């Protein structure tokens, strides 16, 4: 049997995981030395309270999982004779998967016949969620791990995500955005437009002054780069600003004649630690990233 795994950095909640028959690995963050594992022990997570703390000036850190965490997650399934399909956030953004590789090396010794099929979404949050949903459709349609891995080879690069956030200090603190020019202030209305590159990294592709222009940039990017956008999922992610997400959705519908199937989805706190509150982004089917 093939067991389906994902992690909380793909914006999957325990409730959704249960619906899709999926195991959820919690990706932790820490604030002032105190580590939180979202959705590990509870179904609920107060995102609004979390982002409000960030608004109040708190800068969280994220951390990699240990080898043992992966052993604990995977071994029981291998022991039962199951294989695993793991749709996860970008390898290029974390050291977590080095721990996973070490755990898998151990497990291969013990269970040589077992296999982990891996889909690197080359992204985090909204784009990872979208690709996760696509993979879940295939999984539930009975596709094998090998088939899904082969699908992902091309499919992952056909999803693009562009986003912006209010305050650059979170990006700066996380250090995970490349090409973030020095000529950008924090809280000065300047918004870098960031996308998930084909290498699975957050890369700044320019900047806009003010939310209105930044929003317009996202919409025109979807138009220019989109490929059969109306025939695929469109997911808008936001860090505790549903009204901005709705505004973006309205603008997109306006541009695409109301034909889009848009889902609004909050960004998980661990990914949100990188971009801070009041960020909004869109994932869509594209010619390329």
């Amino acid at each position: 049997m093939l067991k389906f795994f994902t992690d909380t950095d793909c914006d999957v909640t325990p409730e959704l995981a249960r619906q899709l028959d999926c195991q959820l690995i919690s990706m932790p963050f820490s604030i002032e030395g105190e580590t939180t594992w979202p959705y590990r022990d509870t179904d609920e997570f107060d995102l609004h309270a979390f982002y409000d703390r960030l608004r109040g000036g708190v800068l969280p850190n994220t951390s990699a999982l240990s080898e043992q965490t992966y052993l604990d997650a995977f071994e029981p399934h291998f022991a039962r004779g199951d294989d695993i399909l793991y749709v996860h956030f970008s390898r290029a953004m974390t050291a977590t998967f080095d721990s996973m590789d070490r755990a898998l090396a151990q497990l291969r010794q013990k269970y040589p016949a077992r296999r982990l099929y891996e889909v690197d979404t080359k992204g985090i949050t909204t784009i990872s969620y979208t690709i996760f949903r696509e993979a879940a459709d295939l999984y539930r349609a009975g596709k094998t791990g090998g088939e899904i891995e082969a699908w992902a080879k091309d499919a992952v690069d056909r999803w693009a995500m562009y986003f912006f956030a209010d305050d650059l200090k979170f990006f700066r603190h996380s250090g995970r955005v490349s090409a973030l020019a020095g000529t950008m202030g924090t809280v000065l209305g300047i918004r870098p437009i960031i996308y998930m590159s084909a290498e699975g990294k957050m890369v700044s592709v320019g900047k806009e002054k003010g939310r209105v222009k930044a929003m317009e940039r996202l919409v025109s990017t979807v138009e220019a780069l989109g490929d059969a956008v109306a025939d695929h999922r469109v997911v808008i992610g936001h860090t505790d600003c549903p009204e901005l997400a709705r505004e973006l959705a309205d603008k997109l519908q306006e541009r695409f004649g109301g034909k889009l199937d848009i889902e609004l989805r909050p960004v998980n706190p661990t990914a949100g630690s990188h971009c801070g509150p009041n960020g909004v982004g869109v994932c869509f089917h594209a010619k390329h990233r």
Partner: protein
Amino acid sequence: MKDYIIWTRPCVRLFQEGRDSRMQAQVLSGPMFAAMLRAGAANLAANRKRVNDLNVFPIPDGDTGDNMYMTIDSGAAELASARGDSLGEVAASAAKGMLLGARGNSGVILSRIFAGISHALKDVESADLATVNRALANGVDEAYRAVSVPVEGTILTVYKDAVAYAGARLNETSTADSYCADFLGELRRSLDRTPELLDVLRQAGVVDSGGAGFLCIAEGMQAALHGEAAAPGAAAPDGKAAGPDLSRFTEDSELVFGYCTEFLLRLQRAKVGDPETFDLSRIQDDLNGMGESVVCFRDGSIVKVHVHTKRPGDILNQMQKYGEFLTLKIENMTLQHNGTDAGSAAHSARPRKRYGIVSVASGSGLRQIFLELGCDAVVEGGQSMNPSAEDFVRAFGDINADTILVFPNNGNVILTARQAAELYDRAEIRIIPTKTVGEGYAGISMLDLTPEDPEEVVRGAEEAISGVVTGFVSAANRETTLGGVKVHPGDYIGFAGDVIYVDSPDRTEAAIALAEALKAGDFDILLLLAGREAPQDESFRLQAVLKTAYPRTEVILRRGEQPIHDYILILE
């Protein structure tokens, strides 16, 4: 020709001579010119406040007197480094000092007047009145060339009229005294005519401040000619030149920035042989090895040095191997009150980069904002305290870049920046003529430094500043009516450009009405910069009101801590 006297002795002797002989003189010598310059500077120093107050706007930001005084004072100070006492040498050193020390538009124009005079007097030992008048006329041409769009009714007109009038009345019976009287008479008349030429002056009921400053200088110079001493203590700088804040370097402070070390070194024949053939690169190499931000140039046997170092003693000992010091100034840069404020990395060795950015701002918050936006250096200054060309040159020297982009952020600073660019040759300097901090913010925040071609970078910046509107709220210090708005002293006025939109006894009300007048709701962003006088809780309340009034506009509040302008509203 009668009463032909050549003044070749210093002014001490001169003042002991009979008054009549000086006044009847027909030739100007170097020492006389030097004495007149010092007296001109002293007289302006005594009257600078009066000149400052000749302000079109009813707020206490007038600084023409200060700017012109600091400019001519730099010229007077540079007289010490004159290579000789010929008229040409004295004029050249005064002009050099003024070019570097120039502040504000009037200061720059003043420095160019004296530069023009000095060019015409090159190699002249002493000059008859016709030569003097030709030199003064060359000053007119040079000053007009310095400004891209000369405005009549300013110092330019006043000076031009005086030179033309006095020149036309020159004949063989003319004396220094009669020439001076003609010059000053027309200078005063022309100054009185400036409100006829400039509407803003007429409306504000003042004469042109730059012209008035020049009159002070000319009156001082005439007094020297008459052997009258300047008003006692007049030359002592007041007010603005406050001492350093010693509390900024405590018992536990660490020496991070080192010492700003400046000196004039006279090369000694006994130490270096012929000073004329001395290879200056020896000194430059020494300085580059021992300090940073080195600016070093020579004028004959005098070497002028500016260097940042943590061990000034080492440099002084080394330099003494070449000569002796004429002047010496060493300041702990942590205490430096004015000058440039750059990031902490500013004074460490940095690799050369393609572009550097210099901005101008006053107020700790504004400086911080510009550093956040990626500026390499922020020159202290702005409204009411304009930086000098030398301040810019120093900032340029701190930046290791091929092209330096300069954002003056004030209409009265652009010319100074241009002058500094002409004086600096270790990088290409491009001036983006931003007239307000709002334009500076717009231009710098949207800068794209990826193009190799600076032309393209500058074009992008100029596009970015085209749509920005900057409004100001300031306390009024006198009664006036401008553009139909009656201004009461003590009230707060809201203005943008030359237009006063509102007068209100309440600061917040003035800001709210100004936002309305500027149609804040049509803009994406309203950046509200709270000044030094605006209390924190008041500015928070104002932000909240503006947010409610303009729900579609992002209202961002930062403390700029700027003087004069209690609020700056930047709309984009």
